[in-house]
């Protein structure tokens, strides 16, 4: 008979907030979800209302607990995982946001980041990150300048936080962040795991507004209902933890709107020479931090949505597989979805999307194939970079996320990577990772081995194409990628 206790995890994502209640076996007991508004005030700008998000989180927490038919007393701990880099500024006295939250996809800091180009080596070496609009530091700087908040920030009256901080502030009253989220700000020294004065000076961010950096798993405090709040991790790091990638060399890949491969690199940060990010994977209590190399791909699942919403070729995302199976191959056509430039391993903001190799023979079925293959080849590029940086060869890919329901994509991934692709039994690995960390911090689960015992293979796809075909297709893909570069000219970027 299992203990009558459960772990709840809040997954505060880009488009919605969810709360999932898990049992000791890691099985889902109940799910609650609420969407929040995406605010697009100008092209390239994306904002959230942090107040609205907090209301959604409160709502889903209550719903998930009551939906499981239990009460708060039966929740052993609450974990948090969140969209990363999104930047919230609020007033210490009132707890009210002082401006809209700037979302990770927002590119308003493009000119600002380019003006800092001579400091790029500093950011790469200290923060482990390339200089890019994606991260929080430039977003804070922009908000301080444009909303005239610098003096109040210097006095500690206006506080900064990523979504984990904002939720922890509201749940426990403390101004803290977890080390994985802090590693996405460009302000934290990746070696010491502390705020770095030179990075702060380079971006002009006052120290007084920053939260205290804490481990990913410890009891931070209690909710009003007395539930211990015991973990916080960025969403991709949580997925790494949920897939139980606890040993150096283990890799997970999450397929959502974008795709993110993370490899556990152990207790030393590995600085990438091949376009990957150095990031903190997790830190459990007083133990040492575990680092990860990350390959971030901006557009994968969102390309399927684009085919549905902008071209109307399919009426639901899942139908891409049906359409792609109307033909046997890509008919010679390749689709590189560099919609907002290329992320890993290229980091080229001047690139734009290309469909290459078009002839009169190509049908919508071929284009659907090319769309699925784009996700697979982008994964291949990141895996090649990871193998080169780590000196290890990937032997299997653990894939999770919504797109793993697409069998043709999973088979294509196995074909282009030339390794087996495995789907774990719980595809909600993000929330599961936050639950695992919170459960470890409170003794609900005794150790990492007990979590590993919960991991099960739900499906496996093995490579089924010839090496010759694979190499020819990869060459063609690379030619198509080359055709996306140098499209946007410098003055257009501004």
């Amino acid at each position, binding site marked *: 008979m299992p203990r009558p206790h459960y772990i709840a995890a809040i997954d505060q994502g880009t488009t919605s907030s969810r709360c999932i209640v898990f049992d000791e*076996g*890691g*099985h*889902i007991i109940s799910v609650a979800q609420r969407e929040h508004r995406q605010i697009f005030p100008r092209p390239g700008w994306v904002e959230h209302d942090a107040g609205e998000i907090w209301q959604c989180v409160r709502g889903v927490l209550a719903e998930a607990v009551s939906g499981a038919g239990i009460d708060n007393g039966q929740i052993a701990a609450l974990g948090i995982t969140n969209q990363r880099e999104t930047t919230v500024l609020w007033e210490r006295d009132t707890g009210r946001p002082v401006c809209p939250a700037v979302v990770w996809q927002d590119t308003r800091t493009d000119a600002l980041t380019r003006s800092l180009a001579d400091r790029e080596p500093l950011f790469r070496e200290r923060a482990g990150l390339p200089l890019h609009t994606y991260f929080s530091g430039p977003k804070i700087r922009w908000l301080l300048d444009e909303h005239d908040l610098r003096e109040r920030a210097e006095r500690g009256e206006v506080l900064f936080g990523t979504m984990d901080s904002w939720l922890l502030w509201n749940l426990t009253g403390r101004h803290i962040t977890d080390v994985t989220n802090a590693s996405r700000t460009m302000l934290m020294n990746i070696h010491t795991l502390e705020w770095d004065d030179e990075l702060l000076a380079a971006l002009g961010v006052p120290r007084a507004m920053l939260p205290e950096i804490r481990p990913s798993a410890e009891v931070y405090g209690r909710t009003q209902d007395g539930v211990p709040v015991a973990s916080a991790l960025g969403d991709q790091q949580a997925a790494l933890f949920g897939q139980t990638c606890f040993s150096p060399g283990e890799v997970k890949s999450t397929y959502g709107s974008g795709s993110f491969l993370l490899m556990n690199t152990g207790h030393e940060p590995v600085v990438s020479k091949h376009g990957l990010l150095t990031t903190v994977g997790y830190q459990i209590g007083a133990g040492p931090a575990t680092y990860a190399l990350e390959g971030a791909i901006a557009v994968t699942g969102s390309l399927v949505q684009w085919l549905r919403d902008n071209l109307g070729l399919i*009426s*639901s*995302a*899942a*139908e*891409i*597989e*049906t359409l792609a199976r109307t033909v046997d191959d890509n008919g010679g056509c390749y689709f590189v979805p560099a919609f907002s430039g290329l992320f890993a391993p290229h980091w080229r903001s001047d690139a734009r999307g290309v469909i290459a190799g078009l002839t009169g023979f190509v049908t919508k079925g071929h284009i659907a194939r090319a769309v699925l293959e784009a996700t697979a080849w982008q994964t291949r590029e990141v895996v090649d970079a990871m193998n080169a940086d780590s000196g290890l060869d990937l032997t299997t890919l653990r894939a999770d996320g*919504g797109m*793993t*329901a*697409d*069998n043709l994509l999973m088979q294509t991934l196995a074909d282009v990577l030339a390794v087996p692709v495995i789907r774990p*039994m*719980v*595809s*909600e690995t993000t929330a599961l990772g936050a639950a695992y960390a919170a459960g470890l911090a409170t003794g609900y689960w005794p150790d990492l081995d007990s979590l590993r015992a919960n991991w*099960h*293979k*739900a*499906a*496996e*796809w093995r490579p089924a194409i010839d090496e010759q075909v694979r190499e020819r297709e990869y060459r063609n893909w690379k030619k198509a990628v080359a055709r996306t570069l140098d499209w946007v000219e410098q003055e257009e970027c501004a």
Partner: protein
Amino acid sequence: MGETIQSVERAAAILRLLASGPRQLGVAELARALGLPKGTLHGILRTLVRVGFVEQDQETGKYRLGATLLHLGSSYLDVNELRARSINWADALAGRSRESAWIGTLHEGHVLVIHHVFRPDNSMQTLQVGTYLPTHASALGKVLLAYDPYDEPPAGPLEPYTKNTLADPAALERELDLVRSRGWAAEMEELTEGEVAIAAPIKDPRGLVVGAIGIRGAVERLAPGGELHMEYVSYVRDAARAITRDLAR
């Protein structure tokens, strides 16, 4: 060809006429074109309006094709969509039952396996998506036959796979009656010696059965002593109901 029903033929002629051009048509125009009395037409049109195949313009009183008819051709559920909507519940079913989980749909008299979750014991297993099972000798197949809106017969003669296979059409009919009355199907070593399976129907928002979900495993685990553990039946029925509920959203 047996006898045909005249009013259905007339209804079809009306629909064909309304579909032949962009213009709305009045009763008088329809009556002239089809050579039918207005009274006869009124009755058929009223019926067609009620089922949504035809709409009447509020201002002109003329008729055009209805929205229901336009959606008729595209309302079937894509099997890949069904898999995407079922995946969390199939995982939970495999997790709770500790057995492999399966989803199938009817395809030319066979069960097409559209989703397969491995038994969670990390043993060597091969993905069976895209393979076929016989309808009369599988739990998924019995559910799909019992609720098939088109009453499609099993493909070919009822091949006996084991001594338990229902190879007699009359015995199979009785079994399908039982499936309909219980709302789930069992298969007791009818396909492979030593293996049993349980399945329940997945319904679309109109109540039509669009697939079946179930588990399959060793007889000594699922039915020790030859009697199915009802706990497993409730896991399967819970999963089927959860997916049906999700499809209705």
